[in-house]
């Protein structure tokens, strides 16, 4: 009986959670069973009024030695009871209690089974044995999970009877039975129920396998967790296991298409490049739109996700609607991504190694003119010069170039690169101490020479139970990343102290690569020298050999990230839990740039202003800390009313300091960065800033029988980023969920719906993504900028007002309503979730342009509003679930529509211009009322002028008919073959008034489709991602299809071979003429392309070594796999890749200019558990 005592003590503690056990469906409808036991029988005394049955059972249990077993749901319908009993027998007491109830009981071996009367009647029909004969034999056994860890509280039943017991903390159980020939049913919440034929075994070991029922999944929500079935908000859990199959540096690379409502866009394929995650569309026009990341409970704005190794992620949940996010208040408007990293687990030490190596290559090369076509073009552009350069100099004819080797520099710049990742994790622990340690090394070379990414990471976590009421834990993480290589989508030269107005597309690496001529027209080869001697140098720097340039440039971005998190949890009673956390995140970033004499910036012939060999070092330190204190009260009243109350106070703060210098005319270039001190300092920067945030938060969850669920959230945030009058923002939200499948009428009407839930939510969230002191006007003092020399003296310090503060600045507020339905159908084989939402963001923190006569360009204001509305669908389907063959699918699709409702007063639109000479300063993207943010803006392209548009004059020249519109050039300068635009206002002149909306960068829908197959020891996973209906502005084509201002000796796209010439008039590719290029150099629908794509994004094939073999080599598990990323993309887009958006500005999505080509990756790897 000693055993029973131990059971009872443990079983008594929590009322519900620990004791939930699953019984067979035969016994009761899927539900939970409660067992209460005590050692010795005692007479029962009760004097209660309107007491709930479970409480009475508790009281009887305390007085007697009887163990109770019942199903939660069965007794949840019991009426409150009023009885007065004194020292009566257990039977009398039970009869009195259950008199008016639809319940009955049986007593067997000091266990009282309470069940519904119907059940007993049913059972009587099935099994007719009246009473069980006396016990014959004892069953002893142990229940463990697949790792061998004991399962405490598993239910062990004899099939076809009400007889059973539960396992203890060591997983052991004991039962006496009256039959040797029985079937045992062993079940435990979250595990697959097992049936075992009992044959007299001394030590029966039952291994239970975890069952992934989504309903009981624990979902991480803000400041707590919830069972999925109790959720009232829109929360998506990311299938982390699937995510990890992608061989990528950071999880965002794999996240796209995995979660409904989450759109991931990347700037380009640059290693370590940034990703933009937009949850349910962009709210903000000029401010950041990324979600708030909460890593292990620590909220971090603007988190750099390449700092976290995907293998380290235990779970990732994305909060999408206001009721889910409002607990994060002022920073939650763009959604919240909650990431939990691996922690220790109870059990013997587990050692896990995951590693892979692989290769990558560019997924596409762009077609450029070959030498013959190129020289032909040069002869068209400037016959005299090109004849001298390409024909007479070497005694060649044009046709000779047909046989001359094509020096496509893409072949030299792009390479097959290597990537590898190694990850080692050790974790384990006992009931009191749990630990996890891991290390990661990741390295990826870029497909462009001299670029790549590296990461080292060490993580550790310890959880320690100090006393039954007190628990503490610690998390330490150190990450070191470095990415290097020229940023292709940044203008290198405009950043190198060039004067204003001198910016030019030639400062971009991909421009130089694509524009590099395929032949010199001579015997000399320039491929190994920096400067092409045939091309005039100056601002037009396409004479620079990009290969030499890129291999000599040092562009290094190093990050060190330290995270320290500690927590204390104190549960003074079983209802109450205090939790206090303190977190510190230190980020140190260093950027090293060095341009030696073999770079355009450092070479004496091309270096502007004699800067010569130069370099810079920039560092920044960001320290963020947070302290959060919450109290959670959870109690079930009358067994039907579950109430959880959360309240908390948090404080956060951060400070940043950065600095650095740039040195020019560095004498010893061989010393690199270390030699900068020998040069002349050209600029020094030093900045610092700080912010604080204080918050009060609260949440009430109320659930009635897990059928009606209510959540109310409230958060008050005070931020230092606003003036005294506007520091505080208040963010309430509420939601309601109805599990209609729990209604009896519903169960009867639609029995195939296993679970169904309707969710309604509404709430407000905020956005405070402004600079720390945006509300203040700034006086900038400088001895370098904005200053002036008097009397030839070195310019003194200047002081100018550089930005205008706005004391009225306040939070941006997003109101979001959400309706969602969750369905589980066909015995859990199909899960379906849909959400419809409507978000209206008002008081936009808008860096609104103002009249420049104010002396300023823009003022940050709370003006305008933006709407995002849409719907999302997620389907998970288990097609086949056999022992040997399994096939699961998941599919999601999202539709989001974005619309600007209002802007600043009198403002119809905000435009965005590419600052370079591409398309001049005319806008390319526009935020216009009634249309989505970032709509493309420009001329409607109308082909080219044909002879029919002209009058032929007597002298043989062509003059544009007066009835035909001009194209921006004067009529006299327009010739057949010139580019033509639509004249929208009918004034026969194409000018800025003919600009119109020419494309939408936002997809009509996007989503993903994942399939996991497993056959015996093989696992295959195939994942498709798509985006449909979005446009891309292919700005490369403006330049490389004749729009460049200076096309001589600049190579062009292959399509240019089909340009208009008198011999080839049936084409829409404009002719080449220096005078008409400036006109072609505008933004028009010609270069807007359909960016829809379907991508076979991740394919992974794994083989698990058979168990037998594993036993022999004494390993728990080995998996070998091969996986591939970005394998095939189906798209009409003509650029490198349709997943591109080089500008990080929210206002200018979908622009492709000089983007780093995306790569295709194939890896092989192993996953070993020791």
């Amino acid at each position: 009986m000693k055993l029973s005592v131990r059971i009872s003590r443990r079983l008594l503690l929590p009322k519900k959670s620990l004791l939930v056990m699953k019984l067979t469906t035969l016994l009761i409808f899927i539900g939970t069973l409660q067992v209460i036991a005590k050692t010795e029988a005692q007479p029962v005394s009760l004097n209660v009024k309107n007491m709930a049955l479970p409480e009475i059972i508790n009281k009887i249990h305390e007085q007697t030695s009887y163990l109770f077993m019942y199903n939660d749901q069965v007794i949840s319908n019991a009426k409150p009871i009023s009885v007065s009993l004194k020292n009566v027998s257990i039977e009398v007491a039970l009869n009195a209690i259950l008199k008016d109830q639809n319940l009955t009981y049986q007593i067997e071996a000091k266990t009282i089974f309470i069940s519904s009367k119907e059940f007993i009647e049913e059972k009587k029909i099935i099994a007719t044995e009246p009473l069980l004969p006396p016990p014959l034999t004892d069953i002893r056994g142990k229940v463990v999970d697949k790792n061998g860890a004991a399962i405490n509280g598993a239910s062990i039943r004899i099939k076809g009877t009400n007889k059973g017991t539960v396992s203890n903390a060591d997983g052991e159980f004991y039962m006496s039975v009256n039959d040797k020939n029985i079937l045992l049913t062993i079940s435990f919440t979250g595990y697959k129920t097992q049936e075992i034929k009992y044959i007299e075994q001394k030590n029966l070991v039952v291994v239970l396998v975890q069952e992934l029922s989504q309903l009981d999944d624990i979902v991480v929500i803000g400041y707590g967790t919830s069972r999925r079935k109790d959720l009232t908000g829109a929360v998506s859990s990311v299938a982390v296991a699937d995510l990890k199959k992608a061989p990528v540096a950071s999880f965002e690379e794999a996240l796209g298409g995995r979660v409904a409502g989450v759109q991931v866009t990347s700037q380009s394929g640059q290693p370590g490049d940034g990703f933009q995650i937009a949850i349910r569309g962009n709210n903000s026009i000029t401010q950041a739109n990324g979600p708030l990341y909460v890593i292990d409970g620590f909220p971090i704005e603007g988190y750099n996700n390449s700092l976290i190794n995907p293998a380290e992620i235990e779970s990732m949940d994305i909060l999408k609607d206001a009721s889910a996010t409002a607990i994060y208040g002022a920073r939650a408007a763009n959604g919240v991504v909650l990431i939990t990293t691996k922690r220790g687990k109870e059990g013997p030490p587990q050692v896990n190694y995951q590693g892979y190596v692989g290769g990558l290559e560019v997924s596409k090369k762009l077609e450029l003119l070959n030498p013959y076509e190129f020289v032909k073009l040069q002869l068209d552009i400037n016959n005299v010069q090109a004849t001298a350069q390409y024909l007479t100099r070497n005694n060649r004819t044009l046709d000779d170039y047909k046989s001359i080797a094509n020096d496509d520099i893409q072949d030299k710049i792009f390479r097959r690169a290597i990537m590898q990742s190694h990850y080692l994790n050790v974790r384990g622990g006992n009931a009191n101490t749990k630990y996890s340690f891991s290390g990661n090394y990741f390295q990826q070379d870029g497909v462009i020479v001299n670029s790549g990414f590296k990461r080292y990471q060490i993580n550790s976590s310890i959880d320690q139970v100090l006393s039954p009421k007190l628990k503490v834990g610690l998390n330490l993480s150190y990450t070191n990343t470095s990415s290097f290589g020229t940023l292709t989508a940044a203008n290198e030269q405009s950043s190198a102290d060039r004067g204003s107005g001198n910016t030019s597309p030639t400062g971009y690496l991909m421009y130089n690569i694509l524009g590099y001529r395929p032949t010199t027209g001579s015997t000399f080869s320039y491929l190994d020298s920096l400067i092409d001697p045939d091309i005039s140098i100056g601002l037009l720097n396409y004479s620079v050999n990009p290969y030499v340039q890129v291999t000599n440039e040092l562009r290094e971005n190093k990050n060190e990230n330290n995270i320290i998190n500690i927590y204390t949890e104190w549960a003074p009673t079983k209802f109450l839990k205090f939790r206090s956390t303190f977190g510190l995140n230190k980020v140190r970033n260093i950027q090293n740039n060095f341009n030696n004499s073999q770079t355009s910036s450092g070479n004496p012939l091309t270096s502007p202003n004699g800067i010569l060999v130069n370099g810079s070092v920039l560092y920044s330190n960001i320290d963020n800390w947070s302290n959060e204190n919450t109290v959670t009260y959870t109690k079930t009243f009358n067994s039907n009313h579950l109430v959880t109350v959360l309240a908390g106070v948090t404080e956060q703060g951060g400070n940043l300091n950065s600095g650095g210098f740039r040195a020019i005319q560095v004498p010893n270039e061989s010393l690199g960065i270390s030699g900068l001190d020998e040069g002349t300092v050209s600029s020094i920067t030093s900045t610092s800033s700080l912010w604080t945030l204080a918050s009060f938060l609260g949440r009430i969850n109320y659930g009635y029988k897990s059928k009606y669920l209510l959540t109310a959230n409230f958060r008050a945030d005070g931020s230092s980023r606003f003036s005294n009058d506007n520091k505080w923002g208040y963010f309430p939200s509420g939601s309601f969920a109805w599990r209609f499948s729990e209604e009896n009428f519903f169960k009867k009407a639609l029995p195939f719906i296993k679970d169904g839930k309707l969710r309604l939510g509404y709430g407000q969230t905020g956005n405070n993504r402004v600079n720390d002191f945006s509300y203040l006007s700034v006086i900038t003092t400088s001895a370098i900028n904005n200053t002036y020399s008097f009397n030839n003296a070195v310019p003194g310090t200047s002081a100018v007002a550089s930005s205008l503060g706005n004391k009225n600045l306040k939070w941006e507020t997003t109101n979001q309503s959400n309706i969602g339905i969750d369905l589980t159908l066909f015995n859990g084989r199909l899960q379906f979730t849909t959400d419809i939402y409507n978000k209206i963001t008002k008081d936009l923190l808008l860096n609104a342009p103002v009249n420049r006569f104010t002396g300023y360009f823009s003022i940050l204001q709370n003006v305008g509003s933006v709407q995002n509305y849409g719907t999302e669908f997620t389907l998970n389907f288990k097609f086949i679930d056999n022992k040997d063959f399994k096939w699961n699918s998941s599919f999601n699709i999202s539709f989001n529509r974005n619309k600007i409702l209002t802007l600043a007063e009198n403002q119809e639109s905000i435009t965005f211009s590419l600052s370079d000479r591409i398309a001049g300063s005319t806008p390319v993207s526009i935020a216009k009322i009634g249309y989505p943010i970032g709509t493309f803006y420009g001329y409607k392209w109308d082909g080219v002028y044909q002879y029919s548009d002209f009058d032929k004059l007597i002298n043989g020249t062509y003059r544009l008919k007066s009835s035909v519109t001009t194209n921006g050039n004067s009529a006299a300068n327009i010739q057949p073959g010139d580019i033509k635009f639509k004249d929208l206002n009918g004034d026969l002149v194409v000018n800025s008034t003919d600009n119109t909306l020419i494309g939408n960068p936002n997809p009509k829908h996007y989503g993903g489709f994942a399939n996991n197959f497993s056959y015996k020891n093989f696992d295959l996973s195939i994942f498709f991602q798509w985006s449909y209906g979005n446009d891309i502005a292919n700005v490369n084509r403006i330049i490389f299809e004749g729009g460049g201002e200076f096309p001589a000796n600049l190579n062009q796209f292959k399509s240019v071979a089909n340009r208009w010439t008198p011999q080839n008039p049936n084409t829409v590719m404009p002719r080449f003429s220096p005078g008409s290029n400036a006109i072609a150099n505008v933004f028009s629908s010609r270069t807007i392309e359909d960016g829809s794509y379907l991508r076979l994004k991740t394919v992974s094939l794994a083989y698990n070594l058979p168990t037998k073999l594993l036993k022999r080599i004494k390993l728990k598990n080995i998996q070998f796999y091969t996986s591939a990323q970005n394998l095939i993309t189906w798209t009409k887009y003509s650029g490198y890749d349709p997943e591109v958006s080089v500008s990080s500005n929210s206002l200018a999505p979908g622009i492709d200019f000089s983007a780093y080509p995306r790569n295709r990756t194939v890896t092989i790897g192993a996953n070993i558990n020791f």
Partner: protein
Amino acid sequence: MKKYNYLILLLLLLVSITSCKKFLQTVPTDFLTPETYFNNQSDLEAALRGVYDRLQQYEMYQDGWWSRASGSDEQYWNATTQRTETNFVTINDANVRGAWTDCYQGIERANLLLENINKPVMDEQARAQIKGQALFLRAYFYYILVIYYGDVPLKLASTKTFQDTKIGRTPIKDVYAQILKDMGEAQTILPRISTLGFNGKVSKTAAQAILARVCLSMAGQPLMDLTKYQDAENWCDSVIFSGEHSLAKNYPQIFINQCQDKYDIKECLWEVEFYGNGIGNPYSESSRIGVTSGPACSSISYGTSFANMRPTEKLYRLYADTTDFRLNWNICPWYYRNPANPGYLTTGAIDTAPKITRTPTQIWDRYTGKWYREQEALTPKSQQNSPTNFPVIRYADVLLMFAEAENELNGNTSAAIDAVNQVRRRGYGKLEGQLVSTITIGSQGTGYTTAPTVVFNGGGGKGASAAATVSGGKITVLTITNKGYGYSTPPTISFTGGGGSGATATVTLTATTDADLSAAQVASQSTLRNAIRDERARELCYEATRKPDLIRWGIYVQTMQQMASDINATAPSNYKFVSTIAGNIQERNKLWPIPASEIALNPMLTQNPGW
């Protein structure tokens, strides 16, 4: 005990609430705000530098103001593509918007400084001087705005909130009134230029000279306030009689000084100063004078020039003959011989190459001159920038403005004529002396088998040369090949070589008045008016005065269109494109458009006619 625990927690909560207010009160650590600045004299001086700074912007005197904004008949941007520089302006033009922005940033900085001018406790005289500069500069920015954009928003207080953007355009009349008021006050408190000792800051006479310019603008189109001629003359008088200024004797030296960062405060009343050329120091706002203009050059050691700005044939023709020294200084008569690969920058090759003189017919091929990068003293030279200061106003301009005002007020008086002639005489080198006018052969000598060398001796001048023609042992003709300059007395002539002897010759020098306006030019008010207009072009070309001059005289459009048709008729075929640049000028081009982006933000702003 349990209750005690709760109490502690409650207390902690309360403490954190009460400390919240302080906790959220952060103070910026790396910048100052207008409220915390302007505490002493050096703060005000720093703010003043910020106001001056806007003059150095790319669209302003660094480059744009005398290149793309100049758009007149004296020079053109050498490009066949349509762009601002070729007078192809659109309402979205970046340069048009840039200049607007620069001026208003200057105004905003001046407004903020003037609002805080009385904040520090400091020397009152120093305060007055700073105030004078700020007032003047604000007015000067408005002057640029009013002549280029017409009616403009008149903002005399700094921007404080978004509400301050809600203003419309003020009629030019009122803008001018404010300019006169501010400059008028400034000139009373500004220091004398001799006190300053340099011209990079605005002095009393500089302000007065600009006031004269403003008054002439007001007297011309579009305002046509004829009473302002008298004011203009009065301001000119103030400068002329101040005793501070006089004409420099040597015309080229004015500009060589500017290339070499030397001040001539007698001639140049106000210059925009540029410090360094961007090499060896972190200052990026250096000039592009000589880089955008000047003779094309790819040599780093001579100083690279892209020669984007080229002189028109019309300007060339305005000079009567080569004895006007300004011709071959302002329009470069030679070019650098380029190495084999044109445009290839080199450090050495060109250094040994000579300058090659253009033939008299190669007028269109010529480059602009005036500021020659080879004159720059600062080395190493930059490929992109020069240290050359830009002269906003010179004493020659004051004299010509005086002449113009006097002629309009009183007709062709001798005072008006004399003022023009002063400028002309300097242009002809007369302030340094005379030129050789004629050589008379006294004795032809005997025995000359070859032409002897003609040697000029004494006379105080230099440069004169002549060639002798020998026939029958005698010198029959002496041809002046260079008239020299700077002779105070006639030099004597001797002959060396040639095998003969006995030849003599005497020299007569030109008279000072040779350079003067001709009788026909001074015959009437209207002939003198035309003479003054041409003289301004000859004297002040490329100094950003021509376009505003043509506009206020009301002849801008017709002048440009006339030039376009002349070019179409007479220019060599490879320069015919310049006719487009002139022909792009229509009636609406008298003003730039108000930037479209400004109008889009503010319906109170209207667009200029025709845009």
